[in-house]
């Protein structure tokens, strides 16, 4: 039998020293940001019942979840997402809590990705969930937090917003089966213009099909709203949604204050069952996928039996650390200032002396060698400036 005792499973990796420090620093920056807005941290289990992720709307394809069974044979998954577990907690233990609830987290999620694609199955995410408010201010708060999350790295970024309602209104007016609607959605998501045009031609020419055809092209800056108004059938609901989004777009631009880029994409139609309103994405120059993803999901928690609106986003910590590593050098691992060597019989005195030095704020190692030459060699290799020898009589430098 082959042993796999020297490698890690595909899609996972060990993080060492500088890599660790970057990850921790990003986590800390994010959590400090979230808590400074009054959000409280929570931790949910790494293992959840499969059922938590197998609601009617099936947001997570079962083939992308790591599954195992508990001692009673019930199906468990390694948490593929943090929002659903938080929705579960909100609908149960926090059901009577005062609203709005402001929650944040940073924890690992697990998803099976296609092999040999350079993707990670284990992703550290930090995120927020704002539960129980439909106020415009709630949307703006979340946007402003997403903008701060992107600004923090001193890199070129882009914050993108969209509104799922526009697509839903349009497609709702099409005489199409659910399957056809899903196919149209997929084609818009992939900005697959050729296939989308072919597909919509089968429904005949109408203002609705014309608007759907153009939807994936409606992305960019403020000009998108004007284009959209021309294209989209003059209709109370859609005009209202567009106007709402335009207000949010303008506020977001002001919040970013000239840093980065705020864009709108009316063709953002991913996870239509999940999102019910505003959609938020964040990009960093040099990373091929979004680093922030979120939006409003007013119906999710009701699937757990508690009807309450919510909005949130998650930041992909691994993606940000990848960009930082790509752009610069790993941070230097902090050096040891002093190494303390104990002569035979002086061990306790040496440990005490080292402790005193630590109390002065120094990083101090105990020498773990039998002779002073090895200690000096080790200190030289690790660039430790000072060797202290405790020999019973006093100190020797």
């Amino acid at each position, binding site marked *: 039998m082959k042993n796999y005792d020297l490698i890690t499973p595909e899609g996972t990796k060990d993080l060492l020293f500088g890599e660790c420090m970057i990850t921790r620093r990003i986590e800390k920056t994010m959590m400090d940001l979230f808590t400074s807005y009054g959000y409280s941290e929570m931790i949910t289990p790494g293992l959840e019942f499969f059922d938590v992720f197998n609601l009617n709307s099936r947001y997570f394809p079962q083939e992308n979840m790591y599954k195992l069974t508990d001692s009673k044979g019930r199906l468990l998954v390694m948490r593929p997402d943090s929002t659903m577990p938080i929705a579960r907690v909100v609908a149960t233990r926090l059901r009577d809590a005062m609203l709005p609830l402001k929650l944040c987290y940073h924890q690992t999620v697990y998803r099976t990705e296609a092999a040999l694609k350079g993707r990670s199955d284990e992703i550290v995410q930090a995120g927020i969930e704002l539960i129980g408010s439909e106020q415009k201010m709630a949307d703006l708060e979340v946007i402003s937090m997403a903008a701060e999350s992107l600004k923090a790295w001193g890199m070129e970024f882009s914050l993108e917003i969209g509104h799922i309602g526009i697509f839903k209104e349009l497609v709702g007016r099409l005489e199409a089966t659910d399957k056809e609607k899903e196919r149209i959605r997929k084609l818009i998501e992939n900005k697959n213009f050729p296939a989308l045009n072919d597909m919509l031609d089968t429904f005949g020419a109408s203002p609705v099909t014309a608007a759907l055809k153009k939807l994936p092209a409606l992305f960019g800056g403020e000009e998108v709203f004007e284009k959209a108004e021309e294209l989209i059938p003059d209709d109370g609901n859609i005009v209202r949604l567009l106007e709402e989004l335009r207000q949010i777009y303008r506020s977001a631009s002001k919040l970013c204050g000239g840093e980065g880029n705020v864009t709108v994409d009316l063709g953002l139609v991913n996870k239509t069952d999940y999102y019910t309103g505003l959609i938020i994405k964040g990009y960093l120059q040099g990373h091929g*996928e979004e680093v922030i993803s979120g939006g409003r999901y007013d119906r999710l928690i009701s699937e757990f039996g508690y009807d309450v609106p919510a909005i949130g986003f998650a930041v992909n910590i691994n993606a940000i650390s990848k960009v930082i590593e790509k752009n610069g050098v790993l941070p230097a691992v902090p050096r040891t200032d002093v190494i303390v060597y104990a002569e035979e019989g002086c061990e306790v005195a040496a440990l005490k002396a080292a402790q005193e030095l630590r109390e002065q704020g120094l990083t101090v190692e105990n020498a773990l060698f039998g002779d002073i030459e090895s200690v000096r060699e080790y200190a030289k290799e690790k660039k430790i400036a000072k060797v202290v020898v405790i020999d019973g009589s006093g100190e020797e430098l």
Partner: protein
Amino acid sequence: MDKPIRMALTKGRLEKDTVGLLEKLGFDCTAVREKGRKLILPVPDANLEVVLAKANDVITYVEHGVCDMGVVGKDTIMEMKGKFFELVDLGFGRCRFALATKKGTDFYSGYGIKTIATKYPNVARSFFEKKGMDTEIIKIEGSVELAPLLELADGIVDIVETGTTLKENGLEVIEDVAPISARLIANTVSLKMRQQEIEELIKKIEENL
């Protein structure tokens, strides 16, 4: 000047057709034509950098965003899937996926599970899945036409251009699976971060198809 937009081209015929198209747009592709063994080549007046790769790798590079755009056949897209925008049907590299069997056999007769040989197992699987047909799929790397001749398979799902190879080997197309042509794809972030440049280029391309 901003750093150039990287475009991955599928080596071979699609590469030649794309270079032809870029030249039609008025860009100087001398470096690409006289490439020697180089794999990354500049098209300076378009602020483009052309990367030559195998079809599957074009998708991989674009997905990861190390190339902003790519030209790849619909066949590869159907087989590989992936997360990117499929923006333009370039119209060249036209052919089709088809189901072929030995001439004169009634493929759909009987209740036995059919065996299909193909280089494109995902395409074949989803084609029969839509029909609600359980099939056994065998992946073949070389000339797929051999499999039914050697009686390893009942039929093949493969790319058909003229059908000459099939005919010469006593096979015939019994059903079309999907039309194929070259597609211009883009990384989902690149399209947003470099919208203006990419949209200008696409506009020019669409005007010259």
